[in-house]
């Protein structure tokens, strides 16, 4: 477990959430917000330093809609996995057709 801890004073809330959202696409994580701090709990302890720096870049450069993005990511996480699992297990139904029509 790796915990990344942010001071609310230092980072606007929106930026942190946005960055966290970005990370949530790659890592399994949990967020806790207190009065003065954001804590990100990452299940993987081996997170690379460049990801941390990515997080910091994200905090400083992203636009103001991360809360929404975070919401979408959180709500659709399970169905996304389900879709991928189904995609991996189902038969390729268009293979021949694609060859025929589009190649």
């Amino acid at each position, binding site marked *: 477990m790796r915990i990344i801890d942010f001071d609310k004073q230092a980072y606007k809330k929106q930026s942190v959430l946005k960055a966290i959202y970005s990370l949530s696409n790659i890592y399994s994580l949990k967020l806790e917000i207190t009065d003065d701090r954001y804590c990100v709990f990452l299940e993987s302890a081996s997170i690379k330093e460049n990801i941390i720096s990515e997080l910091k870049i994200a905090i400083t450069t992203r636009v103001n809609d991360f809360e929404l993005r975070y919401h979408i990511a959180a*709500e659709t996480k399970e169905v996304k996995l389900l879709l991928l699992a189904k995609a991996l297990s189902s038969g390729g139904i268009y293979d021949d057709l694609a060859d025929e029509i589009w190649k």
Partner: protein
Amino acid sequence: MEVVKRQKFKPKEHYNSPGYKLLPFKYLHIDSTNELIVGASGDYVIAPIGSVEAIVKRRPISNEKLMRDLHAKHIIIDEYESGGLDVIANRIRTKKDHLLQLSSLHIFVLTLRCNHTCHYCQVSRVTQDKQSFDLKKTDLDHAIELMLKSPSKFITMEFQGGEPLLAFDLLKYAVETTLSLNTDKRINFVICTNGTIYNEEIIKFCLKYDILISTSLDGPEFLHDSNRKLRKGSSYHDVIAGIQYFRNALGKDRISALMTASSLSLKYPQEIINAYLENGFHNIFLRPISPYGFALKSPKKNYYETQQFLEFYEKAFEYILQINLKGTFFREDFASVILKKILTPFQSNYVDLQSPAGAINSVLVYNYDGYVYASDESRMLAEQNDYSFRLGHVSDGYKKLLTSDEALSVFKNSLNEALNGCSDCAVSDFCGADPVFHHAIQGDAYGHRPTSGFCEKNMSIIKYLIRKLEESTSVRNIFYEWISAK
């Protein structure tokens, strides 16, 4: 006819479920008033800014068309039925279907020798030294063996250089050896030539094996000759004569041309297109110089900002649309690659815009030095002594090559679904990943999207094309014609 005792018909509301679940979708602002919302299937909806927030926060949406669109494009799903997920899963699978084939494009760099000295070329040598710059026969044998082991049933064997026709004997040997060893694949042959080397023997050979010719044409004479230098004489004259010669002998559709935009080219979008039209072409690939270190040996001629290229692209593209609107079919090929991703459920087989990246997954390069590279750009990097994407020697065998550290570094950074800056980008489905580019430009195969020229160029063109698609039915019809033309 008898009418049965009727059941009571129920109104439409009875079949509507007001609640819904979100499906994984992404969005961005496509212009100052609208959001582009793209679902997991790659289908999109354009809606006024604020729609996404209303959808996510379950604010009532009175626009019935929007609600129907959101369902039909797989952005949201009704609460009670999950059977719809199977259809979307099939869509996802279809888009990634090419992965089951693994590499289907196999590039053979037969020689680095060339009769041209183009200033944007990174690799060619004007030399008679066959020993050091031609692929060795034993290495070629290994490479053919590797190629034929690919799981793909359809293979393209592409000969590059240098100028591969300067090594015609080797080329002949490669084609004939491949055909004698092949048991179960359909193989297309392509020769990438500068178009200035041709004779009856070459023509006979191309006819016999149904070989396609791909050549280079940068635009009108003054521009072409400024970019592409022959030691003496005009490359333009030679290549136009060559194109005619090949066309007469092989058939009009057996020869195609590629252009590369130098700094000078950016000033002449219409002239370039006119040169293609005048020379009987019905398509063009508007292609920037990959701004790799080696192309920048002459920065004045070859360095420009992505933004400059984009301005050139749009000017050229608008001109192309005018030509089409006047009734002449003329296609821009890069747009067609993207439009195919947008308008059809299938993937394009263009290797430079895929996720996972085309490098290794769709293409392997067997270089004159006997080594296997992840992509064409990878072997160009090697000419700058950067061997990051050299997978190993042709004699190493499939398993060793594809599990090498170099290969793994490509794979690891080649899924835009899992790259920061791409994973939440609404147009990533229509785009790709390019670890080799990001390694070359940013020193990190993972890449940093906010400052990436790859990202800037592709996002800008994709958004532009979507706006064009929505703009008018006649443009939309042209786009359909482009992608359905063989």
